[in-house]
């Protein structure tokens, strides 16, 4: 009887460990796929470019870069605007740039506000 109870307990424990490990592995896999650097670069560059495209002169845009800059690996100026290109480069081996069609002057800086880093852009004529 004792042996039977011990066997049931053992099989339940093994089964539970297996299920938890299975769920953990799936969760880690999904998380890694979601934080893919190249898609982060693309989404950020395109997002900033579209914001600039839709901006009128005198508009001030604050774009939260905290999640993006956390992924950058010792790259100087990982997010910048050059001419009409938004360039996001989070590592030496990756990078993405997207062009905007708004022909206005864009002044920008990356500033920390309340422990979060923002890209602050001013659109001028």
């Amino acid at each position, binding site marked *: 009887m004792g042996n039977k109870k011990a066997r049931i307990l053992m099989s339940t424990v093994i089964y539970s460990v297996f299920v938890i490990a299975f769920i953990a592995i*799936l969760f880690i896999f999904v998380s890694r796929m979601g934080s893919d650097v190249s898609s982060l670069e693309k989404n950020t560059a395109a997002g900033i470019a579209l914001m600039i495209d839709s901006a009128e002169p005198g508009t001030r845009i604050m774009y939260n870069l905290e999640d993006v800059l956390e992924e950058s690996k010792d790259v100087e100026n990982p997010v910048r605007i050059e001419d*009409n290109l938004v360039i996001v480069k989070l590592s030496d081996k990756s990078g993405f740039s997207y*062009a905007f*069609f708004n022909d206005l002057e864009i002044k920008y800086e990356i500033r920390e506000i309340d422990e979060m880093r923002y890209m602050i852009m001013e659109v001028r004529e």
Partner: protein
Amino acid sequence: MNKRGGEKVFSIYWFLMFGIVAIVVVSGVLLFFSKPVDVRDVEAKILRDRVIDCFVEKGMLKEGVLSSVSEESFGELCNLRFDDSSDPSYGGEMQYYIMVESGEKTFEFGRKDMSEWCGQEKRTNVPHCVRDKLVVLDDGDFVLVSIDVVIDKVEQNAK
């Protein structure tokens, strides 16, 4: 009934079930994240609105705008620029086409061969077209203005 044999069959069933769940989850995630993000629809609509704001003011077509604007003056008139060096594969080729039509007056800008892609919105690896029509006043009369905006940038959005 042989309980041991029953337990082994039960275990195989559970492993099979977990295997199927794992395959479904992995396939779904790979399918979702491998699909490229396409921002051209939003971009084309923003460009359409900018062009409308440039040609129409307070519901009226700006006087003589369709007659006087040219491909050379369009960018400066509407504060737009269309050079794109973001992807080397573009080779400096124009990635935009804009057409504004009102009655018999038509203005076209950019790569005119891209106009044929309008009406093929179900395909993703081709230039993306946004069409719109609006009614405005021109010299006291209501006129229909048609506007087509086509954006290529396939390499950055659909591949």
